[in-house]
């Protein structure tokens, strides 16, 4: 149970190798419980752990995380769109030639095969470790089972997920918009959703590096010298 006593708990930093073993143990626990559903893992020794599971096993992975691994404190749930943004940093001058957008999808820790990846995190108060669970969503079926039976607090996170990424949460039942007006079109945190403020009004930093109008004219008046110098 939760320790009710307060304060003077000894907090000597744990040995790195020991913590690493604990994280390997967590991976073993997940493989034992879920079998082939664990498709990728990544450990940063002494620090953090990522486990990727299949979409079918998403909810059972949640129960393993909460009950078997003891990560009872829910932190967050969200998604990553791994498509490189076709708009870049939005700092290009509007007069420049548009760059060819990069469309190669490179995913992060614990791998990934698809553009959209949902990830959630919970921590344990007994082992003092956190764990990030990831799951891939196929492009033609952006849906995932709800985690409401696992953590009640996931409610708003899943509403945000639906609103910002357009990912359907099966079994949630109340996916009303959380932030945006009801008539809003599109899913703002997708990479192919343009940040319209940047397109309506260009980034003010661009103005600083534009050449002054007089600059190109000055060498033209004295063309031969400029050529000789160059």
């Amino acid at each position, binding site marked *: 149970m*939760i320790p*009710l006593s307060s304060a003077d708990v000894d907090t000597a*930093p744990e040995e790195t190798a020991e913590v690493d073993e604990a994280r390997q143990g967590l991976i073993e626990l997940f493989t034992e419980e879920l079998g082939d559903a664990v498709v990728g893992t990544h450990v940063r020794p002494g620090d*953090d752990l990522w486990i990727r599971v299949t979409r079918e096993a998403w909810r059972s992975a949640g129960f393993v995380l909460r009950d078997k691994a003891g990560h009872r404190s829910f932190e967050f749930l969200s998604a990553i769109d791994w498509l490189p943004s076709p708009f870049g940093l939005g700092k290009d001058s509007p007069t420049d030639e548009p760059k060819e957008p990069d469309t190669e999808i490179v995913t992060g*820790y614990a791998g990934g095969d698809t553009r959209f990846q949902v990830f959630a995190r919970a921590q344990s108060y007994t082992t003092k470790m956190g764990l990030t669970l990831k799951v891939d969503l196929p492009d033609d079926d952006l849906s995932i089972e709800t985690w409401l039976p696992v953590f009640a607090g996931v409610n708003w996170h899943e509403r945000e997920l639906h609103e910002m990424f357009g990912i359907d949460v099966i079994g949630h039942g109340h996916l009303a918009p959380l932030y945006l*007006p009801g*008539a809003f079109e599109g899913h703002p945190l997708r990479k192919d959703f343009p940040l319209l403020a940047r397109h309506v009004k260009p980034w003010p930093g661009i103005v600083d590096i534009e050449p002054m109008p007089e600059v190109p004219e000055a060498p033209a008046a004295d063309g031969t010298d400029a050529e000789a110098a160059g």
Partner: protein
Amino acid sequence: MTAISDRQKVAYANAQAADGRVNLEFETQEGMTLNMGPQHPATHGTLRIVVKLDGEQVLAAEPVMGYMHRGYEKLAEVRDYPQVTTLVNRIDWLGSFANEVPFILAAEKLMEVEAPPRAQWIRTILFELSRIANISLFAGDMALHLGALTAAFYAFRDREFVLNQIESVTGGRFHPYFDRIGGLKDDLPKGWIADTKAAMVKLRDFCDEMDDLVTGNEIFEARTRGIGVIPAEVALQYGLSGANLRASGVDWDLRRDHPVGLAWDQVDWKVWTHPDGDSFARFWVRIQEIREATKIVDQLCDGLPSGPIMAKVPRIIKVPAGEAYVATENPLGEMGYYLVSKGGLGPFRLKIKTPSFNNVAVVPWVCRGVLVPDVITILASLYFILGDIDR
């Protein structure tokens, strides 16, 4: 640059115009629907609570937010790392410096840079000063919501001492923008340590004053004891953090239990919990937190190491590809940044885990069955900042 269709532009304009959506439909089968907010003194900003009433009793309460949504997660994707720091400053505007730290730490973790000890200690001092500035206002504010005006004046008066100290280091009272990847912008000014310790004495007096004025007050106790009880299991389910969690009896503080390189493990202090889980417990735990924070600041000022305040970092900051989640115990609770980098000038994706978002999610659960005035007590005691919910 991909072309933007006119349709998308019109949708954007429409969305902006519809920002003041006040007529959200709330289905009513029975009872009366009452709107609290968007502008209501108990909501610390523009949060709207739609409550369905049967007489004086609340049948259901549903928070409606989004009035403060600024889209920081999207904006962070088009900014470079130093620029993101100015954005995240504005998430919890009462404890701004504390917002910068976990983000900088996440970037430092991926860059494998570590700030020198002096920088870490000054970071911790400023972090705790932000906590005091934030929570001292809460103490006055909570009393104000329950009808005691005087405490709020005391809170505003004494918070100034802390804000002055923050201002004299960073130049900003509210938005310091002082933390840098690899260290800090500047060292402490001359004479600052003595002034800070004097201010800490005043803040301890403020806590005593609050105990005299508020904590022991009969009316205050009558209105907070047993109101809005959140059991520990529910708190964990909803992912509550910070003082709200500790007031439910869970002994957990990231400063002690998950050290991130800052100087909290170098000093002697205590994590307070309260077994009751009601509004009074949440108030009481926060008052103790101010006291502990002043103790931490005092000890850190005494033992401040000398040395540089900036590690060697390149002029143009590029963070190597990778993912990192760093969370710290902010004034409102656990604040974390999940940073995904692809090696560029700015974050590829930045998931901001804010404490208030999880803390307010428990409102529908805890408000069921209470009386209308208790809704005010519960909202005030949960203590959220709207910028921290909506981001």
